[in-house]
């Protein structure tokens, strides 16, 4: 009886450490410098599409988070009363300083991913990989792995490795699976630089 309690207790202790304490210690929580509401822009009021801000240039390179100049096109002076709005104009737009966002989906240096073939040729929707980010009301805390410096979103939200939605996790295994399902046979340098 006693040995049973010890062993079950040990397993529980291990699980707690592995499930909660270790991730807590491993990831650094980064609060975004400003709160940004996607839905305010993409919803009925704003009516913007993803591509209006997140565009590709003539070389086919994805431009990522838009530069402050893009925000300034509409927000040269504060629209509305919100505190964030005021801070954005005063701290970033007026001095023409870029906002140091923490990127959820930044891949490691050695991974080559291009939006153009996936979106233009493959016909993938933004939501396929980025989920409901475009209709989110606020920016959640971004978590960075203290050792590798990579975003936790790359690994996926669930530590057990299971994901129920297509946008959870952006690991290589996922790329490989989708490429394989679509009949591609790629070498390493297809996606590594």
């Amino acid at each position, binding site marked *: 009886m006693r040995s049973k309690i010890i062993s079950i207790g040990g397993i529980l202790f291990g699980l707690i450490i592995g499930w909660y304490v270790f991730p807590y210690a491993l990831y650094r929580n980064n609060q975004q410098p400003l709160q940004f509401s996607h839905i305010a822009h993409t919803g009925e009021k704003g009516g913007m599409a993803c591509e209006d801000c997140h565009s590709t240039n003539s070389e086919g390179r994805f431009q990522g988070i838009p530069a402050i100049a893009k925000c300034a096109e509409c927000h040269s002076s504060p629209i509305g009363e919100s505190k964030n709005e005021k801070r954005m104009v005063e701290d970033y737009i007026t001095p023409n300083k870029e906002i140091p966002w923490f990127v959820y989906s930044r891949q490691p240096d050695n991974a080559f991913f*291009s939006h*153009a073939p996936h979106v233009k*040729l*493959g016909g993938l929707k933004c939501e396929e990989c980025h989920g409901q980010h475009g209709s989110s009301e606020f920016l959640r805390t971004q978590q960075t792995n203290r050792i590798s410096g990579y975003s936790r979103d790359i690994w996926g939200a669930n530590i057990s490795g299971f994901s129920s939605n297509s946008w959870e996790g952006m690991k290589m295994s996922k790329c490989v699976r989708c490429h394989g399902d679509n009949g591609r046979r790629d*070498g*390493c340098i297809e996606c*590594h630089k």
Partner: protein
Amino acid sequence: MMETMTDKKFKYGMVIDLDKCNGCGACAVACAVENNVPPAVEKMNKRNGITWMNISTVSNKEQFPKSESVFVPMFCQQCEKETPCMTVCPQNAVDVDPTTGIVGQIPQRCLGCRYCMTACPYHARYFNWWDPEWTEGMKQQLNPDVAPRMRGVVEKCNFCHGRLHAAKQKAASQGNREIDPAEYIPACVESCPNKAITFGDLIDETTAVAQLAKSENTFRFLSRLGTEPKVHYHSEKKWVREMTEKTLTRTHAANGLAQEEIHG
């Protein structure tokens, strides 16, 4: 979902006209800049510096006035068959790309055992004994299309695959599945002032490189090994074409690498 895509097959290769090469070293510099190879210290050797493009001088060992010499740019020869480095790699860090034929080195997978360096008949692989170092100003001009390597891994020429990526994504953004051949030219080819290097698809018989590769005075280094390199050399001089059949001494390494012997 994405429709099924089967890419057209390419076999990228090169022909280097040794009669046109004057050993200026522009290719080596362009290669280093393109591929984020850190600048070398003065009089570097394989222990403290890296160059993917190694230019050596080979002489015919005759007395004046018969003496002649030739510059040989030596880099990854992109072996097609029994690729020695790929065969020995315990990490699958080297593979031959099925659609382009490029022998790809993935340094992030490499564990640094250096079997591939031993296996490579061309000594075209380099080991990072130290972390790369750039001066502050040079960090600003790093190429974002190529990942820098770290201490403890092997690297080599990948036929400027960063440029292939760029060409592919440009084509894709315009809705094309195939790249414009003019968009994908490795840095060494582009920089050569004498246009000594021809690059392109070896499968397509109409390309200049495919025709040159088949021409009479084109040869490959250590062809008797049967690895079928995709980098060819061309020379009108007989002794140059036969030099890999003999044991030759590099009399002087043009870019300062340690003197070595090529055993042929």
